[in-house]
Every structure is written in C-alpha cells, then in structure tokens.
C-alpha cells in the first residue's frame, strides 16, 4: 500500500506502508548506520516519528538482546529500504515482522535524505504518516491533534524494581531509561533501585541511597516541573549523575535554562571534547534540547564537555557538590563505547568517602 509522510510545512515524501495505521509525531532523523532496534526501543523517542538516514535497514534482523526497553516507543518509522531477509547469527526475526507485531507504523522506500535535508533547513517539525488515499479532512484532523507532553509518564517504570549487586546503592530515577544504562551501572558494581519518574525526594531518601542517577527520557525538560523540584531537594545530599534528560533536569534544578535545538543531535558519530583532558570522544547522542550555556553563569557549574560541531554544552560538573552530568549517551547501544569512563567516574564519586 502506498503511503506518505507529510510535514507541517506541507512537504510530502512518498513510500510504501508496511501496514495500516496512521502516525502523528515530531519528525526527527538519526544518522547512525547501525542500531535501528536500539533506536526503536529507546524511550527517549516516545512521541516522535523517527527517520533513519542510512538507507538499508533491517539487514541483521532483530533480537531480544538489542531491546533498550520493553517495547518500541517511536510513533512512526520512516526508512528507505526495508530488508526482507536479514542475515546475522543473532537474528531472531525480521524487522518487518517485529514492526507489524508491535503495531509501529512504518513507511519504507522513502527518500530519507530528502527528509533530513528538509528538517536540517527548517528545523524539527510535526509530521504524519498516512496512506496515499487519506482524505484532506483526515490529514487536517491528524495535524490538529495537540502535541503530546506527558511522554515521560508513558515510558517510566510503573513500579519500583531492583538490580542487586555488591557495590554502592544507587537509586535510578527512570524518566525513560535505556536498558544499557542500567547494565552499565550494574556492570561496574552498583546496586540499583529503579524508581518511577514521579517518586518524591522523601521516598528516594528513604531508600537510603549512596548515589542518585537521573536517566534519559523523552520530551521537553520544562514539561517536568515536579521532577525538577524533586531534584532540587536531592541536590548535594548524595553523589548524583545525570544523562541526557537527567542532565537537562539537573540544569533546571540548579536554576539554569534549557532550549530547543533546531533539529537536535541524533546519531552515533557526534564528537564531544572533554575540556578537562582536551581529548575528543565520539559519542552516541539523542537529544532535541540543550542546556543554555549563558544560564550556567554563577551556578557554580563548570562545563566539562562541549560538542565539537556546534559548541553546545554536553557535560557539566558542580564545583561544590558531588554532581556531574552529560547530555550524550556513554552507554552507547547504539553507538561507540568511547565514553564508558563516565561510569567509572561516577563510581569514584560514589566510593570516594569510603
């Protein structure tokens, strides 16, 4: 069945629909050449239609091992070629079947480079996936739907759970955490308690943590004022590490500001300079918002990492309290694992007092 992706500005991109079903969401692109399943299941994409710039998708199939959460959260998937017969020893199935069984609207055979160019010049836009036969009214209705803001609520864990280990006890606030962050923390020895995003500071402190971790997640940090308040209460009490949305929330909690990037950073090849060592690391990124550099003045924060391409803030550290955070994804999955040293730094922070 023929279908199309229509963007807010009226541009239309044609392709084949994998199955019936429309999609509405903010259209973003990811430039990674591998890792489509990790992207699909990264809760940070909740509410978004994701297009991949690499044209051959599904080559190595899907496997449980690569899931970053319990299910895919993207609202729609726009790709060029969808591989029918995958080939990899780990493949447990084909991507097409995976998308169908999970009801993810997918349009393939699309000129995804054209979409990327459009978003690059116009900025991130709302878009819809519909069949070619969709009526004007139907299209208008889809565009009229209000933007979804309660995405964190949708992706956060519904209940507290634990990943036991012998090391320090870390409470992880789950705003939409990727499985590999948990695995990375667990691997270095952390004893983890994962709590829902709406957990209060009292509830968290009652768990007697040695450290607090703030996860990645979808959406605009400013849509989460309660979370910011919780973090304010926790600041300085225990060593704290934040990634992505967690990093933005820390900034807000410290009185700094965040803003929406024109089209975000999404891909596995983003260079970031570690300002402490002078070294550049290639990072995996997925964020549409960023911490405003000017707003950090007077907050006792130092910028520790900076994006090489556009100079935006990618990491910060507090000068007085044991706290640091990064905008990018040291846990990779997908992407390069050049940055696992950050987990070691968290470990150092957790164990320094001992």
């Amino acid at each position, binding site marked *: 069945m023929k279908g199309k992706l229509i963007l807010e500005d009226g541009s239309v991109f044609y392709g084949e629909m994998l199955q019936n079903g429309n999609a509405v969401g903010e259209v973003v692109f990811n430039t990674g050449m591998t890792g489509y399943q990790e992207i699909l299941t990264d809760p940070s994409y909740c509410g978004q239609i994701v297009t991949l*710039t*690499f044209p051959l998708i599904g*080559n190595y199939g899907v496997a449980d091992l*690569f899931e970053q959460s319990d299910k895919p959260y993207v609202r729609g998937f726009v790709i060029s070629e969808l591989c029918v*017969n995958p080939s990899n020893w780990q493949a447990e199935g084909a991507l097409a079947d995976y998308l169908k069984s999970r009801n993810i609207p997918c349009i393939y055979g699309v000129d995804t*480079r054209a979409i990327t160019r459009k978003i*690059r010049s116009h900025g991130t836009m709302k878009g819809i996936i519909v069949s070619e036969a969709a009526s004007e009214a139907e299209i208008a209705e889809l565009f009229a739907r209000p933007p979804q803001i309660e995405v964190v609520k949708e992706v956060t864990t519904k209940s507290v759970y634990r990943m036991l280990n012998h090391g320090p006890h870390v409470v992880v606030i789950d705003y939409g955490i990727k499985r590999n962050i948990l695995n990375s923390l667990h691997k270095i020895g952390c004893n983890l308690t994962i709590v829902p995003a709406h957990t209060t500071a009292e509830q968290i402190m009652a768990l007697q943590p040695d450290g607090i971790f703030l996860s990645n997640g979808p959406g605009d940090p400013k849509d989460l004022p309660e979370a910011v308040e919780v973090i304010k209460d926790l600041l300085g009490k225990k060593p704290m590490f934040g990634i992505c949305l967690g990093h933005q929330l820390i900034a807000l909690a410290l009185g700094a500001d965040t803003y929406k990037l024109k089209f975000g950073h999404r891909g596995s*090849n983003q260079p970031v300079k570690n300002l402490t060592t002078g070294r550049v690391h290639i990072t995996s990124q997925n964020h549409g918002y960023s911490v405003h550099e000017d707003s950090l003045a007077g907050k006792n924060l130092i910028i520790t990492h900076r994006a*090489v391409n556009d100079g935006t803030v990618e990491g910060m550290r507090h000068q007085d309290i044991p706290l640091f955070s990064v905008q990018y994804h040291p846990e990779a999955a997908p992407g*390069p694992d050049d940055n696992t040293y950050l987990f070691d730094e968290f470990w150092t922070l957790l164990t320094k007092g001992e």
Partner: protein
Amino acid sequence: MPKKEYLRKVLVIGSGPIVIGQAAEFDYAGTQACRALKEEGIEVVLVNSNPATIMTDANIADRVYIEPLTPEFLEEIIAKERPDGVLATLGGQAGLNLAFKLAERGVFEKYHAELLGTSIEAIKKAEDRELFKETMQAIGEPIPESTIVEDIESAKQFAEEIGFPLIVRPAYTMGGTGGGIASNDQELVDIVTRGLKYSLIGQVLIERSVAGWKEIEYEVMRDANDNCITVCNMENFDPVGIHTGDSIVVAPSQTLADYEYQMLRSASLRIIRELGIEGGCNAQYALDPNSNQYYVIEVNPRVSRSSALASKATGYPIAKVATKIAIGYHLDEIVNAVTQKTMACFEPTLDYVVVKFPRWPFDKFMFADRILGTQMKATGEVMSIDRTFEGALLKAVRSLEIGLHRLHIPEIAGLSTEAIRDNLKLANDERLFVVAEALRRNIAIDEIHQVTGIDFWFLDKIKNIVTMETALREGVLSPELMGTAKKIGFADKTIAEITGKTTDEIRNIRKEQQIVPCYKMVDTCAAEFEAATPYYYSTYAQEDEVSISHKRKVLVLGSGPIRIGQGVEFDYCSVHSVWALREMGLESIIVNNNPETVSTDFDTSDRLYFEPLTPEDVLNIIDKEQPEGVIVQFGGQTAINLAGPLAKAGVKVFGTSVENIDKAEDREKFDALLEEIGIPRPQGTTVTNAEDAVREATKIGYPVVVRPSYVLGGRAMEIVYSEAELKDYMNRAVKASPEHPVLVDRYMQGTEVEVDAISDGQDVLIPGIMEHVERAGVHSGDSIAVYPTQTLPSAVIQTIVDYTKKLAVGLNVKGLLNIQYVIADGVVYVIEVNPRSSRTIPFLSKVTNVPMVNVATRIALGATLKSLGYQPGLMPPKPYIAVKAPVFSFAKMLQVDISLGPEMKSTGEVMGTDYHYARALYKAITAAGMNVPSQGTVLFTVANKDKAEAGELAKGFADLGYSLVATAGTAQYLQSLGLAVDTVQKVHEHKADIIQMIKTGKINMVINTLTHGKEPERDGFKIRRATVEHAIPCLTSMDTAKEVLHVLNFMRERRLVYALALQDYVGGGDNLV
C-alpha cells in the same frame, strides 16, 4: 597542539611505479600530502621515480626529484636538501620500507631530519610479525595462532601442531607477494620457499586459516593527543581467504549488528593507541559468522589502498588529515574540508552504499591463474555509489569496462547446471557471475552459501537482481516495474537486452515515464550539516538536490580503472585538462569511477560525478548539467570509446571530431588517408576469417603482426612467423568476424619512434621525439623510451616532423595526437596514430616543460598554437636525457610469460634523467627495480636468429669480468667465438639444471630470447619464471641487454648517485651544460 613551527622544509617520499598491490592511490595520497604541506607555508621536496603522477608535477612540490627510490638516492637528496622533516607514511609500503632502511642507516640523525607521523618503533610493532603478536597479546586482542619461520623445517613442525589449512605470508612485502594458503605439506614447502625469497627480512608468517569468516576492515586515525576516530568500516563480499585488494568490498559493513560494529571499532581504537600511530592506519579482522569471536588479521600503519577507498567512500580526506597530524596538528584543530564548519575530529556517516570492485588483468594474461587467494592480482579498481546495494554493484560492473553491463557472461550462461555447481567452488574473478547464473538455475541460496561462504545477505541481493530479470522478461514495462528496475541499478542496455528492445527505445520509454536519475551529494554527514562538496552520485529517488550553475561549462571524461595499457597517466591528463578549464574561467565537470585517483578528489574539478563511464550514465549527467560539450581526448580509450555514442546523441565533442577519430582508428579510412598524403606504412590488410588471414599473410610475407582492430595496449597482438602459428592464433586468440576484423601487417624489425604532438588543425607543435631502445615488436608501453632521440639522423627526424604535421592536419587534429613510427633501412613508416593523449604525455610534459594537456585543452576549445605563443614545429631538444623504463608485476602473476612482445605487460613506469645518457638509463633501470649484479654469472640462452648479437654481448660481459654460462646451442656458438663459456643443462636434462642454478644463486642474470610458441610448458618459460621467483634480472630483448651492458661499462668508473630536481633540469638547467 598546533603545527610544529620548526618545520620549514619537508621531504615527501612517493611510492614509485605502479605495480599490482600499489597503484594510483598513492598519487592521490602524495598529492594531497604535498598540498596540505604547502597550505601551511612549508617548502615541499618530493621524491618519486614515477613520472606519470600528478605529485611529480613542478606545481605540486617546490622541488621534485624524479629519482630512484633507493636508500642511496634518498640519502643524497636529504644531504642536498636538508629537510627538517621526512614524510614516508603516504608513500605506501615502498615509502615505509624506505623510511625503515634510512633509519637503519642513521640518515635521520645524521642530517637532523625528523621522521614525521608514525614512528619507526610503531611501524615495527605493526609490521614485524613477532612484535605485532606481542603487542596484540599485551592488549588482549586475539590473533590467529601463528609462528614466524625462517626455514622450511620450522614451518613443517608448526603444521604438525596446528594442522591445515594454514596461511603463509612473507614479512615486509606489499600486496601479499609470495603468500598463499597451504592445505598439505607439499604446498607448504612451495609457498614458504617462495615467501622467504620475497620477504625483505627472510621471514614468513604461518598462521591458522580463518578462511570463510567475514572479513571486516576499519580505517582509523589518531593524533599525538591520542584522539582517535574511525573514518569508515568496510565488509568484504568474499569471506576471508581472498586478499582484500581482490575482493568486492562494500562500505559501510552491511551484515554487522551495532554490537559487532562497535566491538570491532573499539578494537581498532585500542590497537591504534597501543601501536602509537600518528596518522592513518588500517585494521583488518576476521569475524566468525556464527559468534562474536574475531581475530585481528593485519594492521597497516600507514595510508593504504583501503584509505583511498575510505576517503572517496566517505568524502573524508584521510591523506590530507594524516599529513596535518604528522606536522603536529590535532584532529580537533583541523577543519573538515567538506562542511568547512565542523572539524576533522568526527566520524563520517554514510547515507548510501559504496561498492568497490577490483579490475584484474586476466584479459591480458591469458595463461595466468585466475584463482584468487592471499596474493593480490588486481591492477586497479572501480568504486560506485548508490542508495541500494544492487544499484551500487551493477554500477561497479558497468564501470569495469570488461564488456559487461549486468551479472551475465554469455560463456557462463552456456554452461550446464552441473558445470555451474562446479564453478561455484572456484574463487576466481568470475565467481559473482557464476553465483548469479546459479541463482538463475534455481540453485538454492543455502547451497551457494555452503560452497562459497558468501553471506546470505549478499546472495539475497543478487537474487533480487535475477528476480528482476525474470520480472522484466515476463511482465509489462510499467512505470512501476521500470522504476524498480532502475532503483536496483539496471542499465537501459540491460533492460533492452532482456525485453528485446533497443537501448534508445528504453531510454525514451523511461523518459516518457519520467523515470530519470536524481543526484545526491557525498557530504560525510548524511545531510546533517550543509556541505560544500561538489561531489555527486546518481540514484533513483524522490529528490534531486544538486542545483546546476549557469556558467559556461565543459565536461571531462575520466579514464576509469587502472589496467594494463591504461594507467595513471590518463588520470594525469584528465586532471590537467580540468585545471586548464578552471584557469580559463570555465566550470569543469569530471566523470570518473576510480577511487585511487587525483581526478576523483572532490576539490580537483568544480564538480565531480562519481559514475560509470557508459553512454547512459554520461548522457544522464549531460542532460542534467547541459555543458557546452565534452572533452574525450584525455581519458584514454575509455573516453574515446564514448565519443561516438555521445556525438550521436547530439553532444558536442570538443577537439578532434568523431569522424576524424574514426578515420585514425578505422583501417580502411586510415589507409586511404595515408595514400592521399603519401606516407608509407608496413604493408597490411584487414581480414574477417582464418582462411583470408593465411592467404593475405602469404602475400605479405612472414613474419606478420596480427591483432584485433580497436584495442588498447596491444591486447591479443602477436608476431607470427609461420602459417601454423597464424592458424593457431586465429583459432585461439581472436574470434574474427565481419564485426570484429583482424589486422594482418608486415612485421618491420626496425627502430621504433614515438611522437606526441599538439595540433590546432593548421599548425603542429612537437615538444619532443622519443626513441625506443627495443626494436619494433616490443609494445611501446613495455619499451625503454629515450628523449631526445639518440641515433636518428637529422633527415629521418625531418621526415618524422613532416609526417607528423601531415597526419595532424590530415586528421584535422585539435589537441593531442600520438604517433608511432618504425624506421627500417632509413625509411620511416607510420605504425599507428592515436588522436588522443597517450601514456607518454606526463613524461614528455615534464622533460620538455611544455604543459601539453593545458595547451591541448585550450586548443580543443578554440585557441591556436600561435595565439598561445607556441612556435610550430619540433622544439629544440633539451641538453639532458630522460629515459622512461617499464615496470612489471610478474611476481604477482604466476603462470605469466615475462618475455616482451607486442602485447603490453607492464603495469607502471619510472623515469631516469641525467646529462649523461648512460646515467639516465642507469637511474631508470635502478628505479625499475632491476637488480643488475656488478659481478657474477650471466646465462645466455637465445634463439638462433639472435646468436650473432648474443656473441657481441657475451664478449662485452666477459670483458667486464662476468662469468658466462649458456645452453648447449648458444654455448657452442659462443665458444666458437673464443669465449670461455660453461655449458649448462637444460631443464630436466640433469639434476643440476638451470632452474636449480638459479634457485641456488649460481646464475645472477639471464639473457634469453624467445623461441616461438606460448605454451607455459616450454623450457624458456620455466627459466624466465624462475628468474622472477628468485628476483634476478632476465632480459628478453637483445636491445635491452645491449643497453644494460652499455650502462655497466659506462658506470663502472662513474659516480652512481647523482640527484637533481626537475626544476634544476627544466629551469636553469640549460645553463649548467
């Protein structure tokens, strides 16, 4: 850290002549290096023996030394120039080996020159097998169980421990020379023996074979601050077991999950860090298709062929960045030339698929073993870009210029299904086509995978292509079907062939259906950032993002893959033509598909289209760009072949007209022209069948030269001496038919002379005349050529000038032409005229200081010689002598006869220049790698017709103190002249036969001329091959031998090493005499 400010002068070491395993990619790398240094205000001194390169142009480096790449010459140049730094990692394995030798001699300390980039210690760690093993073990990177042996016994012992199959690789060689896979004791002994011989340090590595695993490569960069990035990864279509240079390669990897991709990427970073590389490096892995287990196979601590490919595949200029790193910059201080905003410290991401396809010389070397293994055999490669794998693969096949436009070879299609099954087992150059045929016969993908080890993913893609063939054959050519076929790369010609229509019809239908390609940009970042690179490829998709300018513009056709007969010289010409256009203020557009070249650097022309050079692909670009016309005379036969179809489609061809090109190439028309202007040629005729050939040959008289019409590089050309040989030739070598006539010419055994001239249709400028050392009969590309002529009387030169002018005017040549003459008994005959640039243009341009391509380009666009300030006629000869010598890659091609003949066999060339002819010749043969012994034993075994000449030669060698040995007949003759000659046993006559003597070092040079017949079984063949395997000189032309003797005589009393820059010769040089 910023640039090392103390570097004011840097010496760049080039890679020398083109040989299999080391091709034009180092011209690209070296040229980028020189420019990157000049940009920094550093004075650049360049040394390279290869004159056919852009890098040896006087405008690329401040001081260009076209001198032999030996430690002696290098030390001389360093002593003279006193550079602050030496850059060797962009000159391939040749450059690296040289740096290694210079370090051993203490040259760097002695002259206070710093070896820039990767250190000698790091190079050793990567190249020395034992050190490499230790290093990998230290960082926990797995390598296959292996051992290093220096003798056969240890090799056998290891085989007992590990079992077969085993891979054998000699240490310190390139292109895997002398390596192989051994499956039993005997093979092990053979390969190890050979490997020990080729290794510079007498070592070979033997290791467990991981044949059948996935072969994956990463291109990695590192700076002194330990910043590391990977530029690109690549997956081989063929599993481990076939040299990566002989594999079809796809970028990025296609069958690796993110986890596997990152696992090997991380390994690459650990490796480059541990080795301490500063610059570029290439790491190769074997990855188990059934687990996450992998082995590191090899690491190249330098810019390599794969780096060139990765550069072109991603747009990331590896050579340039490696150079900047070498002079001190860090990756985050170097601007990404593509975006001009972001920095070089990032990883390119692709939004297309790249396929590299090797170009093999098996069309030339009929007897060569076509089985591919660990020893590289390809002379060149093509690259293609598309948004589907199928599209990229089919584009690559079209780009190869092997007469194919799809995965279909008629001979293979004619085989039985059983034969197809058998052929699947052969890992040769045709296997892809056999796989496609197997799929057409419905042989299961599982079975094909079992036999070939090729990943299911690739096989499935080939299946898609085969399925589309059926759909086209059986279906209606609807816009949907046409669109899908074009999306997966089907050429109009292919669709035409399958649907029984003509190519023009398909093109028209397609255009009516509004199915036309669109063009996209290669920008390193998958469109994330706006890029400024005018580097494009075609695909069938929704958006054409390339806007065209409305400036005056001209399209230049490139020369495609490097092959025997069409080497880097033609890329040199294309690039100079583009530069001339830019100088003239015209927009220049280049179309080419060779990733190894300077022409496919995105900043060479105003616009680069990386596309196959077929009429369809080029016409599509012309449809889009609407240039004023095309220039075809610089892209070798590739471009000339396109002139007709383009002109027919209404495209303006600048320069010599298509009619006149045809007049020079069509036998009858050419004969008519010669008759009209009164120029003699060797008697000859055209035949279309074997009977006519015999009848005509009898009329002309033997020996005759026979060849198919319209070929390049003397392909399938032979001299035959009898009717029997002629019949054999007509049956074996050619399929004569009215469409494919065969030329039969009288063979004139005279002096061969070559002229390159520039004509504007009225006046003709001849910058110089070259005389060949070898008499006619040896292909001009395989002859030693000397500028200026040494033996020709002025009357003959006058005739040549006169004929050249008449031919140029007669063909109304507008631009370059190349003419070959033979002078027999004082009479000048014309052999052939090529109304295009030739192999000798770079050589002649450099030695005469006439920018021949620039002038020819301007003339093609309407200028005259006089308007450009050139006096017509022959330019006065320069006071120095330049000698061009051929270089062969016989060591890489087993079963190939090395004797020189009318069919071209050399892969590259070198130049020697000096004020003394003998020293120029000495430099040329030294640069060519001919290891002429200064004493020892010379073997003579010559045909009867050559005995008299052999006598004189033998006497000369004896007078210089060489011992002589000869086979019975030759010995008898030499003894009759009173020479002391030992008779040696022919092959098989005795245990102590010639082969044994060569093997044991008792013969140090061989002079052997051919007795007729080409079967490899013959003795002469075995002797000649033995000289290749044991790296001793073998001269198969009496003329070459005579000149070698002359050099030995002359140089005995003279200084061997004397280096002078090109600028000294062509500049103030005239006053030095």
